[in-house]
Structures are given as C-alpha cells and as structure tokens.
C-alpha cells in the first residue's frame, strides 16, 4: 500500500500493517471531527511514526497515486480542515 506524507514523499507500507494503521487513522479522524488540537497532534504523530517505521521510501522517479495521504507532522487542525473542506464533501 502506498502512503504519502505531505511534504515528505511516498512510502510503500506492507499490507499486513493495514489494520494497525487503520486504527490509528480512525483515531485521527475522530480527533479532527472532535476538534481537539492536542489529541489531533498526538494521533497524527503516532500515525506518522508508525508509517515511517514500517514503510519503505519510494524512489523519486516512481509515479503512482497513493492509497492514503497523511498531513505533515507540523500541520495544524485548521490546516487539515481546510484541506478536507477544499472540495466540499468528499466523494465516497
């Protein structure tokens, strides 16, 4: 599975990690919805460290869309909201 960390590039994460990452992603999603900045930063950092730990960086000249896109570690809740809200309601 290809994961992009905004501002850092893409990594290839083994499919076996998917469940663990999904759990972390759900926590992050709840933090965004709940509007809790501390919780948001904590869960984002947890998710990003896990991705970096298990992921293998993709070569620069490889062009593939990502299955998962994650904000950079220093992103604020407001920035992520703006990102998600850019296109109105996300299809799917």
């Amino acid at each position, binding site marked *: 599975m290809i994961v992009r960390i905004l501002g850092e590039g893409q990594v290839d994460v083994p499919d076996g990690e998917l469940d663990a990452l999904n759990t972390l992603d759900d926590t992050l999603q709840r933090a965004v919805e709940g509007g809790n900045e501390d919780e948001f930063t904590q869960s984002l950092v947890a998710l990003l460290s896990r991705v970096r730990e298990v992921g293998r960086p993709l070569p620069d000249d490889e062009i593939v869309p990502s299955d998962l896109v994650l904000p950079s570690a220093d992103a604020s809740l407001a920035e992520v909201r703006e990102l998600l809200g850019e*296109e109105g309601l996300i299809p799917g």
Partner: protein
Amino acid sequence: MGMGSRLALIFKAKANKALDRAEDPREVLDYSYEKQLELLTKVRRGVADVATSRKRLEIQMQQLQASADKLQGQAQQAVGAGRDDLAREALTRRAAANQQLSDLQTQHAQLQAEEEKLTLASQRLQAKVDAFRTRKETIKATYTAAEAQTKIGEAMSGISEEMGDVGMAMQRAEDKTAQMQARAGAVDELLASGALDDASSPLGKQDDIQRELDAMSSGSNVELELAKLKGELPAGQAPSAIEAGGTQSAATEPAAQEEQK
C-alpha cells in the same frame, strides 16, 4: 472512512476532473507536462527566495549580537565608573536585543526547515517530471486507446498528487517567508531608530550611553591631569616623591605578579 483515505480521494478527484475535461486524454499528458515544468521553475525560485530571506535573517542576527555585546561592554564600563544607572540602562537594552535575537533564532530554524523540505521537494519533482516525460511518450506510442486511457489515468493521478503536495509545500514556504520579512522589516526599523543601538552603524554616530561614558572618562582624565599638575606645583620635594613612588611600584610589580602565580 479514515482521514488518510479521504485526503487521498481529494487528489484522485482532482486528477479525474482534469481528465474528464479533455477530449483526447493524450492531450492531458502534454498539458500536464507543461504544468509540471512551470511548477518546477516556481519551486526552484521558491527555494532561492527562502534562502535569500534566511541570509537576511542571519545578517540581522549578527547585528543584534554585536549590539548585545557592545551593550554588555558598556554596562561593565559603567559599573567600573560607579554609574549603576547607566549600567542598568545598558543591561535593559541588552535584554531587549537578546529577546529579539532569540525570536529571530526560532524563525531562522523554521525557515531553514522549510528550505530543506522545499529543496527535497524540488529534487523529487524533478525526478518525477523526467519519469513522466518518458512515460508520456511510451503511452502515446505503444498502447491501444483503451489501454492508454488506464495508463493515462494512473500517471495523471500520481503526478497530480505530487504536484498538489509540492504546491502546498510552496505555499507554506511562501507564508513563512512573508511572515519573516515582516518581522525582519520591524527589526530593521528598531535598529534604525537606535533603540537597540545598532553596533553596525557608521562610525561617528554614537548612542546616549556611549556619550555619557565617554564624557565621564574624559572628565576623570581631566581630574587626573589636574591632580598631577597640583602635585608638580611645589618645585622641590614633591616631584621627586612622585618619581620615587613610581620607581618603587614598578620594582614591586613583578614580585606581586610572582606571588599571584
């Protein structure tokens, strides 16, 4: 659905939109390639802008450091002369200079981080743009219309995601640079106003603390001269006493130094 997947969908939706608008999907490839080259130029310019701002900050930090050092020296000089009021004033200004300095250091670190990120992003984009050009020609030459459609979709999704990411990194770097420039302007004004005593200012322009210190030392020089003159007045014993005292202290000095060791 998790947030990461939602963000991934935004990028895909954008790529699809571009494809939907095109009559011939292959045209999208050429158009996208043009856009990639434009973005690459912008990113390179962005890296240069951030570097320029960083260098400006570094110059200001040096100026502030020089001011702080000079004020420290003035405070010491004032204490030596028994002028606590002047020393206090110098120390207060030094604290203000140090505060500015530490703020600038924080900003400098942030800017440096943005510069590094943007440099990496520009390298990544360069590699992807090169790869895209190759792939674009392959797609155009080799595949059937149906196959081309799928390949074009993949290439477009991948590259537009990268471009979106790089675009955001650019925006962040530009915002940081703009903030920094506003800040640098304020520090320049502060230095120009003399509130921090710009130690880098041309010679001759003196701050009030220095003026008082200079006045004091020239004042005490006058007192010394006066005392010396007074001592020389009664021609006879007094001058020889001064001379004898001078010789004696010169002779005892090395001994005193030996003792200290």
